């Protein structure tokens, strides 16, 4: 399945958001996820299915002032 992650097209294995995060080795506790411009509550990573063409943003905290 092909989705857009942080603006770049990716082809992925997983079908759930949580699955995808694991696939790319990201700790769900450390990030926030936006699915098609809506915030996705952490509780729904597991149950939320991805479908072709979805656009997700995965962000975290970095050093800033």
């Amino acid at each position, binding site marked *: 399945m092909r989705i857009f*992650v*942080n*603006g*770049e097209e*990716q082809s992925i294995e997983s079908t759930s958001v949580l699955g995808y995060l694991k696939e*790319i*080795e*990201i*700790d769900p506790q*450390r*990030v*926030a*996820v*936006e699915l098609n*411009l809506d*915030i*996705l*509550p*952490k509780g729904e990573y597991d149950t939320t299915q991805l479908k072709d063409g979805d656009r997700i*943003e*995965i*962000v*975290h*905290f*970095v*050093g*800033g*002032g």
Partner: protein
Amino acid sequence: MKKSADKLIIAGREFTSRLMVGTGKYASMEQMVQAIEASGAEIITVAVRRVNISDRSQESLLDYIDLKKYTLLPNTAGCYSADEAVRTCRLAREAGLSDFVKLEVLGDEKTLFPDNEELLKAAKTLVQEGFTVLPYTSDDPIVCRKLEDIGCAAVMPLGAPIGSGLGIRNPYNIRIILDTISVPVIVDAGVGTASDAAIAMELGCDGVLMNTGIAGAKDPIAMAEAMNLAVRAGRLAFLSGRIPKKLYATASSPIEGIVT
């Protein structure tokens, strides 16, 4: 008052330190951690950025920060419209599980001055959504009053452009803001050296927020300690009631009993 009882209270939360520091521009995570430690800060700002999917090697900021000890203040640095800023705040809340946000809506890349028109729009939305909004703004008493009226938890006028190190360019406006505003007034941006921070506190500000002034110094850890001391010095001086300024002198030794 009892000096030791002097606390900074933002949105009902109590802080002992009046210095807030950023986490950007350090040579290493280790240096950042030591500088934050030396600064004595309890509130630290962070930026919200995309995870780099292609390069998973990069370490995570949160691996280095003890969230029991520090309150994270995510910023909206890099946002040039109310919409972008609001979107970033929502992401920040989800990532950080906290309502505190440092709201920045920038006007241009050269000055990084706030676009106060957009800032006010974003602040309205975010306050309605239950955020604790600490807006970075100009030293404009009218905008500060509007931000307070909207329900911001503090106002954070700039002393000078971000990273400029020019100190407080217009103490007169800061004084007027202090006369006008009831929520905490925190000088955000412009501090270049310890005396700049002390001056902000002597004016009566409730706190100072800085990043480049520390991270950009030749010895960031020592400068962090200097800022820690300076903020406390300035606060104490403000509370201690300084002597009035006079054009002429007053002797400090007695006139009587001089040997003649």
